[in-house]
């Protein structure tokens, strides 16, 4: 493990906004070398780890119009540096909501202080926003107004060395509530014949915790391994997790031995669980596109969209992006459901349907004119996939369910748990021919 030599916050062209040296071992103009390297490639081919001829390694991430870059001269643990940079961005977000060039400029004093407090000699120190807030009292400016949470004064020093670093003592709410959001994203790639080439569910449980004191929470899921560990017959639909990851507050050994999820939650919003299921899913939507070239200057699309989930569910804000030739013009659309927009900048048309019931199918017809001078990339659109975005509330593809959430605190108050489910598109793509 080696320390980071310096951190730079740069604008997207590589100009330095703020920099901080931690170890006196870098030439002063090192960012210029980085800048030159940055110009050699575009954003997509540029690897996020680079080495220059002198042996300095540059590790960087992009966020909005900013680049957060670190330089190190030793064989560093680059995953840890990436994680740290993402954490830095997170902390900055807590301070100014929108982390971009302008907010960095407006708040340079706070940024300096944070960089001073979060790293010492290049090694990560305290990185929890709630603790850092106690060290840094300088006012910060947000680009947009956001209600400032009430500040309470408490013993900071106890905080830094506290065993439960993610929660402070003495939190009080009038009404004790906790909200669970189960969000599943479906990544699916469907071939030309409607066959599923790849499907994967990425799920997460987001928690908004508004509980007083130091409560201990116990969460029960329809986890197949749990039922088996209990020697019970699995209920109708139990989920078999391929892999599951927890927030640092969860007692991992408890889960490992008994498959029980038990934790003292941080205050406010956090991600409790993330999981991945590698199961074969039937496509929720299928889309057929029939392309007819009426003449050299006219192309017609017949798009048929069908939903395959149960009739009692409804998908909201469905948007189907169908690629069209890059030089198409004068669109004419006909459909009985929803509305269609031509998006030349995306080389696609977008068919949006506010509500799409289960087991329904809709049709849409589109005609484009094509100029007589053929664009060199005219046929490229057939290689591009159809993209779909949607949201289906009260529904999880995997069948994931929260069976119970028990909340216990010394003071013995009653707390209300709320659970919501939603399925969203991840990377939902259908290949055209």
């Amino acid at each position: 493990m080696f320390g980071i030599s310096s951190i730079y916050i740069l604008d997207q062209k590589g100009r330095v906004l703020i920099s901080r040296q931690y170890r006196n071992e870098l030439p002063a103009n090192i960012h210029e070398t980085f800048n030159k390297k940055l110009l050699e490639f575009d954003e997509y081919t540029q690897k996020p780890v680079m080495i220059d001829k002198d042996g300095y390694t540059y590790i960087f991430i992009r966020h909005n119009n900013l680049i957060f870059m670190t330089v190190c001269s030793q064989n560093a643990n680059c995953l840890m540096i990436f994680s740290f940079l993402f954490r830095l961005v997170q902390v900055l977000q807590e301070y100014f909501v929108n982390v971009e060039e302008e907010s960095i400029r407006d708040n340079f004093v706070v940024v300096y202080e944070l960089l001073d407090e979060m790293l010492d000699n290049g090694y990560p120190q305290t990185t929890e926003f709630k603790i850092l807030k106690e060290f840094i009292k300088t006012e910060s400016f947000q680009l947009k107004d956001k209600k400032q949470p009430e500040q309470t004064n408490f013993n900071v020093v106890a905080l830094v060395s506290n065993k439960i670093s993610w929660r402070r003592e003495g939190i009080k709410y009038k009404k004790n509530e906790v909200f669970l959001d189960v969000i599943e994203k479906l990544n699916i790639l469907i071939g030309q014949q409607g066959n599923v080439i790849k499907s994967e569910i990425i799920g997460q449980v987001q928690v908004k915790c508004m509980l007083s004191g130091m409560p201990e929470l116990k969460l029960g899921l329809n986890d197949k391994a749990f039922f088996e560990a209990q020697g019970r017959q699995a209920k109708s639909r139990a989920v078999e997790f391929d892999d599951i990851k927890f927030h640092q507050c969860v007692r991992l050994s408890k889960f490992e031995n008994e498959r029980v999820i038990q934790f003292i939650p941080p205050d406010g919003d956090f991600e409790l669980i993330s999981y991945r299921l590698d199961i074969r899913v039937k496509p929720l939507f299928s889309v057929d596109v029939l392309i007819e070239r009426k003449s050299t200057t006219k192309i017609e699309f017949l798009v048929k969209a069908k939903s395959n989930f149960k009739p009692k569910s409804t998908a909201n804000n469905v948007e189907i992006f169908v690629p069209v030739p890059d030089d198409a013009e004068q669109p004419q659309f006909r459909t009985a459901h929803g509305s269609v927009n031509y998006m030349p900048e995306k080389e696609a048309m977008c068919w949006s349907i506010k509500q799409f019931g289960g087991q329904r199918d809709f049709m849409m017809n589109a005609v484009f004119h094509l100029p007589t001078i053929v664009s060199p990339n005219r046929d490229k659109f057939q290689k591009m996939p159809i993209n779909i975005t949607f949201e289906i509330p009260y529904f999880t593809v995997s069948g994931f369910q929260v069976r119970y959430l028990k909340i216990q605190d010394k003071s013995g108050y009653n707390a209300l748990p709320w659970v919501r489910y939603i399925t969203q598109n991840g990377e939902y793509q259908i290949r055209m021919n």
Partner: protein
Amino acid sequence: MRPHYASSIANIQPPKQQQYFEGNRKGEVNELKILVKNNLSEKDDKKKREVIKKVIAYMTLGIDVSKIFPEMCMASYTNDMVQKKMIYLYLTTYAEQNKDLAFMAISTFQKDCKHSDPKIRGFALRNLCSLRFSGAIEYLMPAIKESLSDIDPYVRKTAIMGCVKVYYMQPDYLSNIEEQLYKMISDNDPLVIINAIHALNEVLAQEGGMALSKKLVDYLLGRLKEFNEWGQATILDELSKYQPKDDTEMFNIMNLLEERLKHSCSAIVLAVIKVFMNFTKNKPQIYQQVITRVKSPLVTLASISEGNFEIMYTILCHIKFIASKGYNQVFAQDYKCFYSRVDEPTYIKLIKLEILSLIACDINLGDMLNELGEYVTDVDQEISKKSIQALGAIAIRLPDLANAIVKQLSSFITLQDYITNEIIIVFKDILRKDPKHIKDCLDIIQSDSVTDQNSKITLIYILGQFGSQIPLAPYILQTFVGSAEESVELKHALLTSCIKVFFTRAPEMQEILGKLFYCIINNENEDIDLKDRAAFYYRALQNNPNELKKLWQYGIKIDKFLEEQNINQEALLFEFNSLSVIYEKNVNKFIKSFEYFNNLRNKELQDQIQESQQTTTEKQEPIQDGFDNEQTITIPNTPNLLEISNQSQPSLTIDSFVLDYRIDVEYFENMWTSLNNGASFTRQLARIDIANENSMEQLFNRYRLYNIAAGEEDNVLQMYFYGAHKCQVFFEFEINKNLNTVLLNTRSELEDQAYLAQKYVQDFLKQSNLIS
């Protein structure tokens, strides 16, 4: 720093809300100095904060505000924490340049180190230790020693890091500090422990870092959960250096750590994997089990880090590393996780392709072939080429499945030229390994869509090697004979191949070969080596064709292929979870020693001092300096070498120009209006992405041409540059984004110099791909 003049002709800075980053900075440092002085006695903390903030803003902009150092020292006697922090930041930044004055500040730091608030104690100590000049050490050591036993952990952890800072300045000051640091590992506070571990590793770097006893390992493992994620990753990393005494201990530790694989922080998961791998590296069977166990978390991290492509890339590098060490079968089932998505950056797609090519085997190849086939027709040429190469690599690694791959590649015949070009190269390797595939390759070989130079040479090689089995071989070779524009390498290959085919198909080849000999030997401008070779073969054939034939049928059998050596079991385990996995190199291949960097830095500091001395003299007589470099006209090492030597005209190189040449705006304007237009050109703009003021300025700067003014209006960027070699040259440079054109006007007192300078600019614009 940007030249100050830039803003006087055209102000290109966008307006900012905050006043700190606005306005003309010239001469303002002095104003600021007065401002700070006047406000020192100010009672209102808010006002003082604003003034100090302004100083820091200037510092952030890269303006040298070291002049205000004494005033800032005075201002440091404040009780306002916000001010203190800013002032300390200032002092630590400029202390190195103001050694004499920095002593003034030290007393404040010392006083604060004894403050009642632990936050201030720790903060002051941290900054005190950052004052990097040798004189400070005497004051430093007592403060550090005292703070190491402070009652507050925040101060203790800071003091430990202070030790490391001192170590790099004067190692001898720290005698016996190790003992104390070891003691501090049993501290109550996790951050103190972690910092002590870091410190020991740096101080004892030469002995291989901190020493780990069984007791220490048990202790750290027991407290592991108290640490934050960085701390846990640090301890795990430490643990990976430890060697358990026996299997029982090893399994105990591993069982204890297994749950950590479920942690959401990827750095911890990878650190655990590293421990497992290091523990079991000498026990192949358990090692295999470990790899199988950690596969799932790795694959999850690679797909969950959605959006965070940087983390995804790092994880993929590690997966590739494991797969390339002989454990490719472990990932065989998960091949679908390595399919690319449209919106992923190219570097992710490329590494996924490499992984796919590594893990391909009979159970997944069917599906994978279809998917890779999709990538071959990708709009991105780089992806397309890489996927063809991936298919080729699979065919070579799995001879039993090669047939299907060759057939699939052959089916791409009707597609773009660049695809055919790449396929030919891949076919060559497959055929070298296993010539029996030749009949499936015929369609592509005999198509006439090979356009690229390299691919042509490869094609000629294939024709020569397998001439007897390719019906059209002589006639394809014939098309190359006598063609004037081909390269020397190609002609060499052609000569070899023609002779090879001649031995198997003499009647068809005789005339073609004869023509080739004629073309080469009678061409006066031909390469001398090629001529020699041709003449040699010609005479040998005349003399005794059978002897030559015998010589050619050497028939070396290849039994080991370079491609196969990629997969070997030898593991560079200690380096797992570090940069060496990303670079695929051993540590000592890319990491240089601390001394190396230190020298580099010292040299730079000296250069800076020299430079600043030079510029003061240079400024007075800028033009005369130009003649010093008069003689250094050399031919640059660029692809244009041939062209330049043909012209037999001197050309300009970067060394011809005077470094950091400076003139002022007025002078430029006078010269520009008084001179005639010397040379100009207009070209098509090839890369819009770098066509902005900033990158252009940098580009020109790199070639020692300097910006004097710039402005952008209605998508037309106009910039003025100047430089000096034998004489001064001035440029007007314009990028018109509406028309996509680049225009350059060059003026100089000597007209031929204007022409040369223009060519010089044109060359480097071409090199940077701005124009084609």
